[in-house]
C-alpha cells in the first residue's frame, strides 16, 4: 500500500495525467473554466465519489427537479467525479456510463473511461485519489459510512438522517474531529430556499420576537427498529446485488429484494432532521441539546437549559405545516417553512436583525461544502451540528417508547439515572463494521 499522502495538487496532476492517457486527445482544462464564478481556487478540482444512486443520490450527481444545484455536482467545474457506488451493480454501472458520457461530451474526449463503479462503499474510499464523497445511501448506514470515510481521510457530504442511534452519531462526530475532515449534512434548509430559514433565524436570534420561549416543530421524532432476527438464513442473493454492503452495520437478515433507502424506521426518523436542525439553529443550541424530554397528550416536548421549550406539534389552533418551525417569543412569532416566511406582527420581517442574529451565511449548501473542502473550515451544518439536530428526533423517539419524562445530559449525552433509556442509545454494529 502506498502510504504517502498525495497532495491535492499532485492528485490533480495524477488525475489529469490518468485522464489524458485514457482519452484520444489530451485533456486541458482551461484555468478560467475552473472554480466558482470562473475563478481558480488553488485547491483546483475536488475529486469525488458518490454512493447511493437512487433518487436523492442521482439528483445530487446529475441534477434534477428537486436538486439545489442545476446539473448536479457533475456540472460543476470544480469537481471531478472519479467513482460511483451503489449496492445494485446495474445502477452503479449506469451511473459510471452517464458520468463518462458527460465528460466525453464536455471535454470532447471520446472514449474517456476514468470513472469506476463500486457496490461496496468501503472499497471506494480505499482509493487515495478520492478527496470527498457524497453519501445518499440507505438511511440506516449513512452516518456509519461517513464515519468510515473520515477514518479514511475523506471529506463527506452526507444526506440525512445522519445516524440511527445517538452513539453512532457521536462516533461519527469524533471521527471527523479527530481526522480533521470536512462534514456537511444534507440539511439544505440552512442554505437554500431563498434564504428564508436563515432570515428567520437571524430575526429570532437577533431579538425580533423578543425572548424566545417556545418552538413548535411540527415533527414528532422516532426511532430505528432493527430488522427481525433471522440468523442462519443466508437467503438467495441474486447476482448484481451487494446485499452484505446493503445490510451494512445492521444485524444480518436474508435478501428480501428491497434495497430501498428508507427502512426500519418508526415515527419520523428521516425528514425531521431538516426541521429539528432549524429548531436547534433558532434556539442557538448547535453544540448542545435539550435537558428534558417528555410527552404531553402523546406529543413529545423537549426543554433546553435556558427554558426554551420545543413542542413537536403545531401552534395552538393552527394546522400542521409540512416541515418548518414556528418560533414564539415575548414580542411575536415567526413561522418558517419551505414555502413561506411569515410573522405576527408582520412588520417583524421588515426589521434588521440585531448583532446576535449574525449567523453563519451560506447561500448554496453544496458550494459551502466545496468551499470548506478547499479552506478546511467548518461547513454550515458540520458533524456536531448535524448530530445534535438528529439527536432531537431520536430523543423524542426514546421518550415516546418509554412513555415518561427523561432527563438528558447534553454534555455527556446520557440520560440521568435511567439505565433503561441509556440502553436505547446504541446498537452494537455487525461484525466487520467497527464503530469508532
Amino acid at each position, binding site marked *: *500500500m502506498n*502510504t*504517502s*499522502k*498525495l*497532495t*491535492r*495538487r499532485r492528485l490533480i496532476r495524477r488525475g489529469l495525467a490518468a485522464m489524458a492517457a485514457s482519452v484520444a486527445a489530451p485533456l486541458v482544462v482551461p484555468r*478560467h473554466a475552473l472554480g*466558482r*464564478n470562473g*475563478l*481558480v*481556487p*488553488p*485547491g483546483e478540482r475536488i475529486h469525488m465519489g458518490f454512493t447511493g444512486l437512487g433518487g436523492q443520490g442521482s439528483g445530487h450527481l446529475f441534477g434534477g427537479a428537486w436538486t439545489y444545484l442545476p446539473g448536479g455536482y457533475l456540472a460543476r467545474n470544480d469537481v471531478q467525479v472519479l467513482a460511483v457506488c451503489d449496492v445494485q451493480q446495474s445502477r452503479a454501472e449506469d451511473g459510471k456510463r452517464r458520468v463518462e458520457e458527460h465528460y466525453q461530451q464536455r471535454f470532447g474526449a471520446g472514449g474517456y473511461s476514468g470513472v469506476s463503479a463500486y457496490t461496496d462503499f468501503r472499497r471506494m474510499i480505499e482509493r*487515495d485519489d478520492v478527496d470527498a464523497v457524497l453519501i445518499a445511501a440507505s438511511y440506516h448506514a449513512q452516518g456509519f459510512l461517513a464515519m468510515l470515510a473520515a*477514518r*479514511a*481521510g475523506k471529506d463527506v457530504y452526507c444526506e440525512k438522517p445522519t445516524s440511527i442511534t445517538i452513539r453512532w452519531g457521536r462516533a461519527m462526530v469524533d471521527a471527523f474531529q*479527530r*481526522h*480533521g475532515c470536512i462534514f456537511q449534512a444534507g440539511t439544505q434548509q440552512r442554505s437554500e430556499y431563498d434564504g428564508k430559514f436563515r432570515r428567520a433565524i437571524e430575526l429570532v436570534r437577533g431579538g425580533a420576537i423578543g425572548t424566545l420561549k417556545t418552538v413548535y416543530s411540527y415533527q414528532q421524532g422516532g426511532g430505528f*427498529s*432493527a430488522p*427481525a*432476527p*433471522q*440468523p*442462519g438464513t443466508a437467503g438467495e442473493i441474486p447476482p448484481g446485488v451487494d446485499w452484505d454492503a446493503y445490510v451494512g452495520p445492521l*444485524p444480518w437478515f436474508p435478501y428480501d429484494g428491497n434495497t430501498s433507502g428508507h427502512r426500519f424506521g418508526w415515527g419520523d426518523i428521516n425528514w425531521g432532521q431538516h426541521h429539528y436542525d432549524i429548531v436547534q439553529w433558532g434556539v442557538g443550541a448547535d453544540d448542545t441539546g435539550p435537558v428534558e424530554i417528555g410527552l404531553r397528550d402523546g406529543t413529545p416536548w423537549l426543554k433546553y437549559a435556558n427554558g426554551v421549550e420545543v413542542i413537536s406539534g403545531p401552534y395552538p389552533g393552527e394546522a400542521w405545516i409540512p416541515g418548518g418551525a414556528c418560533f414564539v417569543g415575548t414580542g411575536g412569532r415567526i413561522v418558517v417553512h419551505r414555502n413561506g416566511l411569515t410573522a405576527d406582527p*408582520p*412588520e417583524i*420581517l*421588515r426589521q*434588521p436583525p440585531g448583532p446576535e442574529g*449574525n449567523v*453563519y*451565511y451560506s447561500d448554496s449548501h453544496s458550494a459551502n461544502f466545496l*468551499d*470548506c473542502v*478547499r*479552506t*478546511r*473550515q*467548518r461547513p454550515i451544518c458540520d458533524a456536531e451540528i448535524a448530530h445534535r439536530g438528529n439527536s432531537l428526533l431520536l430523543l423524542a423517539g426514546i421518550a415516546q*417508547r418509554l412513555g415518561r419524562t427523561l432527563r438528558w445530559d447534553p454534555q455527556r449525552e446520557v440520560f440521568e439515572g435511567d439505565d*433503561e433509556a*441509556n*440502553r*436505547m442509545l*446504541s446498537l*452494537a*454494529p*455487525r*461484525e*466487520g463494521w*467497527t*464503530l*469508532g
Partner: protein
Amino acid sequence: MIRMTVVLGTTLFLATAGSGQEQAQIEVLRSDAPAAAKAAACRALKLVGTADSVAAIAPLLSVPELSHDARIALEAMPYAEASAALRDAVGTTEGVLRAGILDSIGQRRDQEAVNVVAAVLADGDLRVVASAALALGKIGTSEAARQLEQAYANAAEERRVVIGDGWLRCAAGLQQAGLVEEAAAIFGKLSAPGEPATVRGPALLGLLQTAGDKTPDRVRRFLAADDPMISAAAAAFLPYLPPTTLRSVVADSEQLPVASRLAVLAAARLSGDSAFAPAAIAAARSEDPVVAQAGMEAVAMLAGAPGLDVLLPIATTESPLAEPAWRAIEALRGAGVDAKLAAALPGRQDPGHQVRLIRALAARNASGSVPVLLDYVGSDHGEVRAASADAIVRLAMPAHVPAIVTLMLQTPRGAERDALEKAAMLALDDIADADRRTAAVLAGVDLQSDAQRVEFLPLLGRIGGDRALALVQAALGSSNAQIYEAGVRAIANWPDAGVVERLADLAQNARENHQRIWALRAMIRVSALPGTLPDDRKLALLRRAMEMAARDDERSLAIQRAGAIRTVESLRFAAAYLDHAGLAPDACRAVVELAHHKELRDPNRDAFVPALRKVIAVSSDAGVVDRAKRYLQELGEHKQSSQWGKRVSPRLASARLKEALLQ
C-alpha cells in the same frame, strides 16, 4: 411453549423492563429454541437483562449466527459480568467474530481488557488487528498506548495503517483525560513524514491541539509550511482558535501561501469578528483574483457599511470579480448598509449598474429604499423599470402605499403598473383592519375624480371592509356606466363572503351579461372561502350557483370550489358529476382534493372508496389517477387485492359509486 413467549422482531427489541420477562428470555436461551428465537431473546435482554442473564448469553458469543445478537445484549449492559464474558470470548473465537467481540470491548472502554486485547494485535487476520487496535484506542489508557506503540513499531506497512488508527484514537483519549504531554508525544511520532497519510494528517492536527502556549507560533509555522498536509492541518485547526490567537494569525497572513491565506480569510469571515475587517478589505483589493474574491466574501461578513466603498467600485467594473462583488454586496451585514446602497443609486448612470444595484437592494430586503426605487419605475430604460417594479413588489411596506398609489395614477397600464398594484396589495396585507387598508389607499387617490374612481374601485374591492363597501355600493347605484362597471369589478374582487347575497343579486340582475358572469364567478369563489360561513351554507351557495349558471365554465368552477369544503356532502356533490362529460375532469380533481385530507377521508371510507375508483376509471389526467390510487391505498385498498389497479369499467364504477352515495 417457550417459543410462544418470544415475540420476534422489533417489539421486544424495545420492550419494557421486567424481571419475569428477563427470566423468560433466559429460558429461551437455555432451551433448544431456534436461532431466531434466541436472537430475539438477546435483543430483549439488551433492554431488560440484568447480570443474571449474562451467563446465558455468553456462550452465544462464539456461535456464528448468534454472536452479534449476543453482543447487542452484552454491549449495552452496565455490568462487570458482561465485560468479563466479552473478554473471555476473545480466546474462544477467531476471525470476524473475534473482531466483533473486540469492537464491543472497545465500545465498553473496558480497562481490564488491555492485555487480552493487546495479545491479538499480532493476529493473522487484519480485521482482528484493526478491531483490537481501535478497542485499545477507545480504552485510552497509558498502558493501552504502550501496547499500541510496541505493536506499531514492529508492524508491517499494511498493519501500521490500522494500528496507527488505534494509537491515534488512544492519544485523543489521553488528551481528553488531561494527559496532554503523553498525547503530544504520540502525535509527534505519528506525524513524521512517511507515516500513513490517514494517521499523519490527524496526528498533525493533534500536535496543534496539544501545543499549549506554543499554539500561535505552531499554527503560523504550519500555515507557512510547504508540505500541504501540514498547512491543511493548521487550516483545519483555525476554527478552534481563541479570538486573540486567530487575530495574531490573521495579522501575519499576507505573506502566507495562497491556500493558507484563503483558509485564514475564511476563518476570519466565519468568526464574525469585525476586527478582521481591515485584513478582509486588504485581501479584497489583492491583485490575485482568488484572494480578492475570498476577501470580498469576508468583507461582506465583517466590514459593515464601509465595505461598500470597497465592493461597489469592483462591482461596477467589467472584471470577472464584478459578480462576486455584487453577491458580497447582497450579503453585506451591518447597520446603514441599505441606506448607503440606496443613496448610491442616483449616482449611477449606467443602466446595467442601476439594474444590478436595484436587484441588490431587493435581495437585501432593503425596504427603506422604496422611496428611491419609485423614482426608477418611470425610467427610460425598460430593464431599470422592470427591476425597480419587481423590487418594490418585494419591499413595499404599508407606509409606502400612498406613494405607490399616487405613482400608479401616473403610470400607463402595463407590467409596471400591475407590479405597483401588486406591491400595494402585498404591503396592505400587513394591515389587519380593512378600513385602515382602505384609508392607506385613499391617501393617494382623489375620489372626486370619476377617472380615479374607475381606476381604484377594483383595488378597493380587493381590500374589502365597510368603508370600501360603501364606496362600491355608491358606484353600483351610479348611472355612469364606467363607474357602475368598476363597482361590479370591485365587488367581484371582494376578499370574503360578506357580499355573497349582493353578488347573487348581481349575477341575475347586473346591467350587462359579462357583468352577471363576473358576479356569478365571484359568488362561487367567495362561497367556499375559509372561515365566515358554515360548511353547509357554503355548499348550499354552490348548489344555488349551479342552478344559476348558464355555462359549463361556471359549473366547473363551482365543482372545483366544492373541493375546498371538507365535508362528505361536498364529496357527494362533486362525485355526482363524475359521469358528466364536460364536468367530469373538475369533479375528479375535487374528489381527489377532498380525499387528500386524511381526517375527512378515513372516517368516510365508504363514500371515498367508490368515488376514488370512479375517478380512476374516468379520469384521463395521470396525476389525478395517481393521487386517487395513492389515497385508495391509504384507505387500505391494496393494489393486489382490488380491482382499481386495473381500471374497472366506468359503468361498473358508476354503479358502485351510486350505491355508496345513497348511503
